[in-house]
């Protein structure tokens, strides 16, 4: 297999990709509405449910699904499995995009976005009791780290271009970036460890409001472990899909290894999840809480089924792909349950996302996919690309 990353090529916007652009534009139109009229008229949010799908889905699930870069980096750099290196760059692209879109969602969601800069600029005012502050600072820093990690792809492209100021800049910047890369990569391992666990800690303060099926002192650990499992799953998903669409040879031999790692990680998660429920004496609650039980069972069963599929047939690309989707879904549901389904502020409060709220989320996802396609078409990201195949 050709080990050098290449741009896929093709038009920046084809007929399919321009559809994505339209979906994104619809979302952005609703976004403008939100900024003019405030959050009330545009969303289903209220004083009982202050956080909706923009936080639960776009930020909490979105960043966990963007943990591919984190998971593969652990494998590559810490466990020293150099053979996974071909997967790193595309994993970093999905991570950089996923985290950037989460950042965008936060700007849309917070009411007083023009004060956001103060969070960065006034360290003297930081309230270290706030898990959310830790998340905010780490996520901002990690977005920067991810784009620096991705910058060699840009620099390689510019260096290879025709002589220009950009080419000169790329030639000069490359060695600097290469020197910086090691400490940056380490930062890229520490930051997700911090904020993915803190995303779990955020909900600990919801003492009475979050169902005991999900409320636990172990939330930070459970969030951290599951994000690594989801990271492996998303890399399998993304790689399988892009290989199929671009008619590149499947990287099953590599992906099966990720599947094996995911088995270990998610099994540890399952054991902890059950041990925690038993230790807190809430297993019975989990089984007789009406529709909460349904969501809990769905969460458990998708993850158990995902692990079983991986155990049975991870060398088969189709089985591997299905298992990855199950783990992504199960991990996403665990987060969604913790932030929304299991959250009950008291009698009389209801939340369901409004149509504009939903379209903004869909628009952001469309934009993310669109940017991914543009990046792999223009930048050397994927390995083993056949230039004549077009997405």
């Amino acid at each position, binding site marked *: 297999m050709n080990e050098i990353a290449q741009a896929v090529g093709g038009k920046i916007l084809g007929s399919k990709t321009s559809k994505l652009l339209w979906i994104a534009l619809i979302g952005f139109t609703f976004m403008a509405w939100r900024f003019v009229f405030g959050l009330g008229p545009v969303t289903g949010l209220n004083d009982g449910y202050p956080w909706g799908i923009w936080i639960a889905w776009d930020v909490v699930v979105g960043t966990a699904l963007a943990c591919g870069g984190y998971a593969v980096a652990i494998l590559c750099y810490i466990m020293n499995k150099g053979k996974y290196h071909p997967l790193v760059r595309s994993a970093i692209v999905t991570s950089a995009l996923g985290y950037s879109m989460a950042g965008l969602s936060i700007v849309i969601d917070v009411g007083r976005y023009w004060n956001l800069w103060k969070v960065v600029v006034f360290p003297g005012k930081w309230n270290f009791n706030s898990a959310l502050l830790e998340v905010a600072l780490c996520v901002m820093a990690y977005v920067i780290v991810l784009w620096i990690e991705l910058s060699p792809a840009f620099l390689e492209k510019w260096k290879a271009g025709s002589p220009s100021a950009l080419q000169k800049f790329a030639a000069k910047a490359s060695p600097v970036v290469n020197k910086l890369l090691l*400490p940056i990569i380490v930062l890229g391992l520490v930051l997700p460890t911090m904020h993915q666990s803190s995303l779990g800690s955020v909900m600990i303060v919801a003492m009475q409001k979050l169902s005991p099926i999900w409320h636990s002192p172990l939330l930070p650990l459970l969030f951290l472990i599951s994000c690594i499992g989801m990271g492996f799953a998303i890399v399998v998903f993304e790689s399988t899909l892009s290989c199929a669409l671009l008619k590149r040879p499947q990287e099953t031999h590599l992906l099966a290894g990720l599947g094996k790692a995911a088995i270990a990680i998610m099994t540890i998660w399952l054991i902890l999840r059950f041990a925690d429920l038993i230790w807190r004496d809430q297993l019975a609650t989990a089984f007789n809480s009406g529709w909460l039980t349904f969501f809990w069972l769905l969460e458990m069963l998708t993850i158990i089924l995902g692990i079983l599929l991986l155990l049975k047939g991870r060398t088969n690309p189709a089985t591997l792909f299905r298992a990855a989707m199950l783990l992504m879904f199960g991990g996403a549901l665990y987060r969604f349950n913790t932030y929304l389904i299991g959250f009950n502020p008291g009698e009389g409060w209801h939340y369901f996302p409004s149509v504009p709220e939903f379209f903004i989320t869909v628009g952001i996802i469309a934009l993310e996919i669109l940017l991914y396609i543009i990046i792999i078409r223009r930048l050397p990201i994927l390995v083993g690309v056949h230039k004549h195949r077009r997405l």
Partner: protein
Amino acid sequence: MTLDRRSFLKTIGTTAALTAVGTAASAREHVEAPADAVGMLYDSTLCVGCRACMSACRTANGLEPLKEEGGIYDAPIDNNGHTKTIIRLLDDNGANAWIKNQCMHCIDPACVSVCMIGALKKDDHGIVTYDKDRCIGCRYCQLACPFNVPKFEWDSATPLIVKCEMCNHLVADGKQPACCDICPREAIIFGDYNDLLAEANRRIETEPDRYNPELFGDSEGGGTQVLYLAPKNISHQDLGLPDLDDQSIPELSETIQHGIYKGFVAPVALYAALGAVMIRNRRQGGER
């Protein structure tokens, strides 16, 4: 292989251990009311539901009365972005009682604990105040508050968090909060927190047939600076107050957060450990 596995386990182990430390660390110290604490005492048995307090609150805090469609004048069904206090009636099988809702000014408030750059703070008197210039509108305070007190201006493009600040602008001038000032029955009174505690207990002791023996706020949720007396045979939960332990709401979350991030040692140690592993891996040529 053993090396790889060891370093992998080190990574997972370090973080697991750190979280465990957080969980196992001795709980953060119990917070007491400040020496100069002020408070309010609401006596449900005295309240007649005239809602003069709601009207006075609007005037004192510059809040516009609510004008609903159909000409209904100022009848909010809950505190909201325009309403900082409200009187409700419990009317359940003949049991009849009034309840006034506003910020409880917790001794150890969850909203203050979670607020990222300190828009919500406790002042010297223990009043929980709001500074809009430090608020980014993340609404974590709303999620954290067990009383659902902080409200958000959902219909504004430049929204604020709205909650009772015990008329701290009046208190600073030596006056008392507008609701306490106007109440014709002294159902809500303002004063030194410890005096109010003593007064509430005195009422329960002298008139056991009139009052529920439980005083709400002396210990619930770590204690609140607004205290509630309920009529005999009506529980505070019947009146809509949550059933809270004596542990304050942020005690567990802060214990865990402090355990993990104490002195910022853990993240630095993790950085150093991972950096060392990476450099060694690079030397061994595992990386391309």
